[in-house]
């Protein structure tokens, strides 16, 4: 059974804190993605990675960075959390060129 796991389901952080969101997939997928999901806006791509140590900016990369040191793990970093980064964060993975993305359960982050 394919699986994408995320380190936390719920997270509460204070403004200015550094936040790490971790994602692990066990399907040997080349591609990994980080999205945020907000009501009325749908899923918006923050960053994606098509190989270890490779990354590409998505539509809304400002305020975020990523790290992919191993094929199965993709981390999202909020360098200095702000209240407008309160959102649901979803990680996904796919084979290179594949049409299906497999999603994790999401992390609901609240920044106060």
């Amino acid at each position, binding site marked *: 059974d394919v699986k994408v796991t995320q380190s936390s389901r719920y997270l509460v952080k204070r403004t200015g804190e550094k936040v790490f969101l971790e994602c692990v997939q066990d399907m040997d997928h080349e591609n990994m993605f980080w999205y945020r999901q907000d009501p009325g*806006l749908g899923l918006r791509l923050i960053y994606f990675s098509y190989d270890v140590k490779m990354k590409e900016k998505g539509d809304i990369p400002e305020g975020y960075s990523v790290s992919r040191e191993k094929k199965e793990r993709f981390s999202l970093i909020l360098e200095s959390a702000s209240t407008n980064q309160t959102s649901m964060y979803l990680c996904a993975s796919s084979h290179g060129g594949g049409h299906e*993305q497999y999603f994790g359960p999401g992390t609901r982050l609240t920044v106060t």
Partner: protein
Amino acid sequence: QKEVEQDPGPLSVPEGAIVSLNCTYSNSAFQYFMWYRQYSRKGPELLMYTYSSGNKEDGRFTAQVDKSSKYISLFIRDSQPSDSATYLCAMRENYGQNFVFGPGTRLSVLP
């Protein structure tokens, strides 16, 4: 104009009804069209995908793509309360890695 538009709903229907969910898009380079279902507090899961134009059927679900109109649809026959979820359309270019998602339509099927 957003790249992918979708009526957010919410859409409420009685059990057994036929449901029609739709998306419009502006990028004529999109070739892969997907429908994802997302239950509350879960990540999206792929329901169906279609390549280019045409219809695809899977049980009670039918996906239609009309590239000339830049319009895709998902039909659910004999809807069940377990179909209550948010439905997201997604699209990708032929050689692209990025998926573009619609905002989702929230569907409630009432027993």
